[in-house]
């Protein structure tokens, strides 16, 4: 068995808002008891709809945010409560890629300077930086003379390549990508997804890939975690999740996905109602308000994530 790089144990994040009246604070539970592990070289896809906590999870693992409770064991050390300065050496190894390549690049700096910035912070010499920047530009499929250009001279797909090059400068091991292709056109999205895969093979990278597009996640991932309102509701291999989903939410999500091939349309199942607000989470199983198979018990008993067959499922009714 491959070596474990990350273990997330019972991680929760509660945000306090100032929304309540008379100075009372509302509590939003963005993540609630999330646990999973990640082995070296694999890709874990995290899917879910707005407000399910998928982005919060990504930010917490990369310690852009601090969990309220729980452990994040990265290579044997708990990084959940590490201070900013204690995290700094680890930032080399854990990199983050954001959704919007337009907002992630400083418009007033040249691409070369943008790519070299992390290396400068980590104290690499000028010549070494320059050489590495050129090497990376080539690796992500950009022209050598991009070095002197500015972000506005690039299209969205090219900018995302710059962002990827910057993330690779310090030879990271774990890359957390939050919706890295959702701002791109379909034909460019395919190019960037291929690039992610090539780099993974070449540099033995481990990915956490957060996305809402079920086709994209299936393409890139080895395992998938499906989230709903701050919890993982199902976790398993791509094949199991897509071919044999167990949780009613996973089933509904997959059947809601618009299909190009309409021959299978009869199986379409449409959930009623909206996604509840994390501010006002339903009691018991948080999916019970929309679940097609819910029974009264579901509104009181909160299901645990447990192993059923080949996957982990959090549902009272799946046996």
């Amino acid at each position, binding site marked *: 068995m491959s070596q474990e790089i990350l273990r997330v144990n019972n991680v929760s994040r509660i945000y306090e808002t100032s929304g309540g009246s008379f100075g009372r604070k509302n509590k939003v539970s963005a993540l609630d008891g999330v646990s999973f592990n990640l082995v070296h070289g694999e890709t874990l896809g995290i899917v879910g*709809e*707005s407000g399910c906590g998928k982005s919060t999870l990504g930010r917490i693992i990369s310690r852009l945010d601090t969990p309220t409770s729980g452990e994040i064991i990265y290579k044997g050390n708990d990084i959940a409560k590490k201070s900013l300065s204690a995290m700094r050496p680890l930032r080399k190894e854990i990199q983050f890629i954001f959704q919007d390549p337009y907002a992630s690049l400083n418009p007033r700096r040249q691409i070369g300077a943008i790519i070299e910035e992390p290396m400068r912070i980590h104290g690499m010499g000028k010549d070494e930086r320059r050489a590495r920047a050129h090497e990376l530009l080539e690796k992500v499929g950009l022209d050598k003379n991009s070095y002197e250009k500015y972000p506005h001279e690039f*299209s*969205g*797909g*090219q900018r995302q390549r710059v962002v990827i090059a910057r993330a690779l400068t310090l030879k990271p091991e774990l890359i957390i990508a939050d919706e890295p292709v959702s701002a791109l*056109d*379909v*034909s*460019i*999205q*395919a*190019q960037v*997804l*291929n690039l992610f*895969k090539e780099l993974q093979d070449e540099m033995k990278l481990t990915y956490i890939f957060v996305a*809402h*597009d*079920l*086709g*994209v996640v*299936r*393409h*890139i991932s080895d395992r998938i975690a499906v989230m709903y309102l701050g919890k993982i509701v199902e976790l398993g291999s*791509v094949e199991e999740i*897509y071919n044999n989903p167990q949780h009613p939410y996973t089933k*509904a*999500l*997959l*059947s*809601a*996905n*618009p*299909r*190009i*091939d*309409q021959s*299978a349309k009869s199986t*379409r199942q*449409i*959930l*009623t*109602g*909206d*996604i509840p607000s994390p501010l006002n989470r339903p009691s018991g199983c948080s999916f019970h308000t*929309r679940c097609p198979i819910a029974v009264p018990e579901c509104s009181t008993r909160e299901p645990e994530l447990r192993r059923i067959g080949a996957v982990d499922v959090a549902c009272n009714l799946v046996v």
Partner: protein
Amino acid sequence: MAEKLLEVKNLCVSFKTRKGVVRAVNNLSFSINHGEVLGIVGESGSGKSVSMSAVMGLIKDENAEITGEVFFNGEDLLKKSDEELRAIRGKDIAMVFQDPMTALTPVYTIGWHIREQLQLHSDISDKDAKARAIELLEEVGIPDPEKRVDQYPHEFSGGMRQRAIIAMALSLNPKLLIADEPTTALDVTIQAQILDLLERLRKTYNSSIIIITHDMGVVSELSSEVLVMYAGRMVERSTKSSLFANPQHPYTKGLMNSVPRVDRARTSRLETISGQPASLLNLPSGCAFRNRCPSAHAACTEQPTFISDSNGYGAACFLLTEGVRS
């Protein structure tokens, strides 16, 4: 053959900019019959939204030049005055935009929005208009419409706002509904609800729908006819089934292969279209797709004509005129 509801002929839209003339839409011609759903697909800058804004007379920019003809019920919309257009927009042709957050005025209630629409086009009392608003909200599946009608947009979720906008658009039984990326801002399960709603409404009212989208899946769910655009031109027009089974234009083929599909076996690599989408300021001569096209050859430096059959189905590519070469 059914009567044509909308017929667009040689529509061109260009904008003068400091960097030169941008030809956003070039010689677009198509038509749509009663009760039909036409999907317009393309990537950013392909001209899909601009062409529909032109049809609706929504382009007010003084640097814009619009030529061609747009026949709606036999009358050329491009020749109409603002006032005449206003009588048509909202009543006969309604539009649903992508972002339900910005399409509603935050300081007025949902009911006010629908009432405004009704009272602009018909003589209807406040009381009746409100009753009709409640009816419409109920029809688009908003729970508790008597209470919801007096709520403000911020009290609605994204999916509910889009429903409210659809309710507004439907308030006067339009003959044509233009939906510009109506589900792009929504989550998958909510998207499924909205697509289902549009389909149901089409059946009830026999309205025609033009749906603009970049998502092949959405097109496939809803439309019967598809028009593919690239760099301001129509590159292919077909029925949905033949387009997906047998795409003709190399761009359409490339586009379909680059979508990671849930309903197909997983591959390690996606097929891609090389290069970047064409910049409208700097289009290659001849076929705009030629520098990304795997089958480009010498003839492609000329602009290919759109070869179509009697139904208007066809593609703009030299491969079709020269017989099968690839």
